[in-house]
């Protein structure tokens, strides 16, 4: 008898059958990644938490619609992205800015904590300044490791549209972060 952890597809089948323990397992397994994606899109943890709760409730209600042929994380991210866009439309009067963003929790000890925080802040600001669709594509690509085809599946946009968004998004970030060469670059590079 297989006592290993159940796959996401197996857990979804159990959720569709009304097993709350399976949903609890899915929540605990994916809550951090869901919150991270939402935070990178929305810029605020309390909004990210709201989105994450909405996402798992949506999963509970729509469990019967999930087809195991599709990758669970693709389906999950699609719900996250849609919910983030819904929330962003409601928050459109308050653009994301450094002043609205709470400090990130401390990560691994960097060589120079002050420079690392400043770098992270600049990056956060630059990503936050991207148009919503470009930001979505870049975040999913850079931080969640999705290919442009997978991003197209998640968002429902065409592959050519995603390609264009990635190219323009990264071009915008290169421009915004071009003067960061003096900040932490020598700390990152082992060789010139």
């Amino acid at each position, binding site marked *: 008898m297989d006592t290993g952890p159940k796959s996401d597809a197996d857990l979804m089948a159990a959720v569709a059958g009304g097993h709350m323990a399976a949903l609890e397992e899915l929540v605990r397994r994916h809550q951090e990644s869901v919150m*991270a994606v939402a935070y990178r899109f929305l810029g605020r943890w309390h909004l990210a938490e709201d989105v994450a709760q909405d996402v798992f409730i949506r999963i509970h209600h729509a469990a019967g619609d999930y087809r195991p042929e599709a990758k669970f994380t693709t389906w999950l991210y699609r719900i996250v992205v849609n919910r983030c866009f819904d929330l962003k439309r409601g928050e459109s009067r308050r653009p994301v800015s450094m002043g609205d963003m709470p400090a990130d929790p401390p990560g691994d000890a960097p060589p120079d904590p002050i420079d690392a925080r400043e770098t992270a802040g600049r990056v956060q600001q630059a990503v936050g300044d991207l148009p919503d669709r470009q930001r979505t594509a870049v975040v999913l690509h850079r931080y969640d490791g999705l290919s442009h085809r997978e991003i197209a599946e998640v968002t429902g946009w065409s592959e050519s549209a995603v390609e264009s968004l990635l190219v323009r998004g*990264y071009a915008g970030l290169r421009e915004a972060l071009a003067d960061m060469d003096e900040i932490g670059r020598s700390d990152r590079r082992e060789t010139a």
Partner: protein
Amino acid sequence: MNHPTELELIEWTAGRLERERAEAVGAHVADCEVCARTASAQRDTWDALGDWTVAPPACDLWPAVEARIEGTSAPARAVGPSWPRTVFRAAAAILLAAAVGHVAGRWVRSRMGKPPVEAAFVESLRLDALGGESAVGLSTALQTLVPDYLKEDVR
């Protein structure tokens, strides 16, 4: 010289191109100043993006999710078939509508005067000369000629 696409350069700096294509792009970048400059800038940007680490605050979403699900009265998925209840409700609605219609019809007929078919029947018999002895203009003796369904109104 066939330049790689911008997306290919992005994927190449990220180490996500397939091996064969990655080797080709690498060889091209080594010989092309323009692509080398773009690739270098992209690599710096890619690394800088990696400095933005995100660690969600320690929290457990499950209690809040569970409470919100249990707070909604409707179950996430109905247990057992629901069609018997639906059929029963539809049948009850039909019976109710029929009963209301019957009662309403009787009330309307009781409020109406001589029904049109009775007026035409009387006229066809040309009973005017006999004079009306009842409220509807027919003599008692001729009541036997009246169809049964009109007798109630004739009385």
